[in-house]
């Protein structure tokens, strides 16, 4: 009797794992296809063979410049920023057990943007300083939200309200910076603010790539602990998890990834918010959704960028497209949560 039920459980587990694996492979394949599309499409459409030759290092006139200096960095920016936003957002949503508690709504991306904009417009500093400022601001914002919302009456609703308040204050800072910034920097600043892959260069991507290469594997490894945390403090402790340490590591890595991505591409709206819920809907529960959320982030950013580049007469930055898709979803989610009485 016991034997047959363990077999059943095992089978169920295997089935869920197979589903998880298949969906991850499909998502990765889609991401690769979108990456190729990013390299192939543009003012001139190059054949695949030519793009490969350029990637291998051959200097084909015309194609070399277009692919290597413009399209490759653009693709890489989308790839790494998408992964960072997707994973980071999923970590926040899972740890706080509420899809609304994501970096976009809580104002963490706004904090990073304000600091990055400050260093761009006021100090006109190098990219390293911009990245650093935005990372520090992201961390400070998280700390501020934590300090203001912790205390004897913690509630997730209060935390979200406080996040919205902080976001309002930071938006005022951003408006102020746009007012005092010099006229010639403004179009670039506005474009950056709406989240854009334009003008990505290999050397400016370096901090983001390094962060993702270090922290994405860490987060994937910690995925299981994250799921245990979601069960609640008591269950996690009784399962032998040192919750505070894990929580700190998870939050730090998530904030670092999001802040570096924000510094590089600007705040690409709602990718951090959308990826987690989509992953949950596709994969279900049972295995960690960190990797699928990251892959969905990549697909969202690259897909939205392709739409923004080619679907309309004017070229829209990627953040406008994700914003137009993401904000209605946020509203839909709110309506559903309200109906079910979760809020």
């Amino acid at each position, binding site marked *: 009797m016991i034997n047959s039920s363990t077999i059943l459980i095992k089978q169920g587990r295997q089935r869920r794992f197979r589903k998880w694996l298949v969906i991850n492979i499909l998502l990765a394949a889609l991401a690769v296809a979108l990456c190729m599309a990013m390299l192939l499409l543009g003012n001139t459409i190059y054949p695949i063979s030519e793009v490969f030759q350029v990637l291998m290092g051959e200097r084909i006139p015309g194609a070399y410049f277009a692919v290597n200096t413009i399209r490759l960095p653009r693709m890489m920016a989308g790839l790494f920023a998408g992964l960072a936003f997707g994973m980071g957002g999923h970590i926040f949503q899972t740890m706080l057990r509420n899809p609304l508690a994501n970096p976009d709504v809580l104002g963490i991306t706004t904090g990073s943007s304000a600091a990055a904009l400050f260093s761009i417009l006021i100090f006109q500093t190098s990219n390293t300083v911009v990245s650093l400022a935005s990372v520090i601001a992201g961390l400070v914002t998280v700390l501020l939200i934590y300090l203001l919302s912790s205390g004897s009456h913690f509630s997730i609703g*209060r935390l979200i309200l406080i996040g*919205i308040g902080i976001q*309002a*204050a930071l938006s*005022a800072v951003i*408006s102020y910076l746009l007012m005092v910034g010099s006229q010639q920097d403004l179009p670039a600043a506005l474009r950056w603010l709406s989240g854009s892959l334009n003008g990505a260069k290999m050397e400016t991507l370096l901090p983001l790539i390094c962060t993702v290469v270090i922290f994405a594997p860490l987060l994937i490894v910690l995925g299981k602990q994250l799921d245990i945390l979601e069960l609640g403090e008591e269950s996690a402790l009784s399962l032998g998890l040192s919750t505070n340490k894990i929580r700190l590591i998870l939050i730090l890595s998530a904030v670092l990834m999001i802040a570096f991505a924000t510094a590089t591409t600007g705040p690409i709206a709602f990718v951090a918010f959308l990826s987690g819920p989509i992953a949950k809907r596709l994969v279900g529960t049972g295995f960690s959704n960190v990797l699928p959320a990251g892959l969905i982030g990549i697909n969202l950013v690259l897909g939205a960028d392709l739409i923004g580049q080619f679907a309309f007469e004017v070229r829209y*930055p990627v953040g406008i497209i994700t914003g137009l898709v993401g*904000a209605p979803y946020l509203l839909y989610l709110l309506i559903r949560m309200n109906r079910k*009485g979760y809020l």
Partner: protein
Amino acid sequence: MTLDDLMAGLFLSSSDSYAAAVVSERVPRTVFSLLCGGALGVSGALMQAVTRNPLADPSILGVNTGASLFVVIGIAFFNISTAGQYIWLSIVGAIITAIIVYGIGSMGRTGNTPLKLVLAGAATSAILSSLISAIMLPRSFVMDQFRFWQVGSVGAANWDFIAIFLPFLVSGILLAFIMAPSLNALLLGDEIATGQGVRTGLLTLVSAFTGVILCGAVTALAGPIGFIGLLATHLMRLIFGPDLRLIIPMSAISGASILTIADVLGRLIGSPGEVEAGIITAFIGAPVLILLATKLKVRSL
């Protein structure tokens, strides 16, 4: 600027000194900011009373952004450029947004709670602002016209603005004063209000409408200035208690003072340029929102 210069500028119309010119520039600005602030204060008080929700404010509920979107559409697609046209578009935008936000925020068993209403406002704002950027980015002429307006400033004020605005303000504030006693009853709950002979449906509709129109009119002329309603009302509630017969007129006065102080402060900080009043009010108002959020009881979230 000395007090003497001010007096000379105000009362000696023949005076043609530099100081007099400056004063005659600043007078409409000051009057305008007093009027706008008063309207926003009353609008906030009305919205809080109708929704029975301490966090209601035109900017937090996204009503401002709705008004902005309609004005941007007007500028971009219908070549609209006069204040008289702005004001109607902006009011329509404000009304539609208010209905949507309130509808979403009060869904479900628990009715409208501060958290649900604020979240609905934030989400709606997010959609509307991405629409605004999508319309604005490819059209640089709209961006020029809109960028300064978007922040919220009383700097563009002149007597024409005030003339257009005054009818809305006067009728709105009068309506608010008349409704104050019935709104007091409404605060006790729908049943009690009905028992006291208040027609709650009509009252709610009219006062919500008045609040939204006041804020829409201000937004049309000055741009989205946030948090005045929140600041003014809570300050007055702290001093005078919850009686709306006192709160509504006092919110008008304190709103007017807060916006004017913010404008002066912005000019002092930003000198020789200026920091728009909308930035200052958001910067003062947001911490108040946070403070209120930390004070709310968990159950009432």
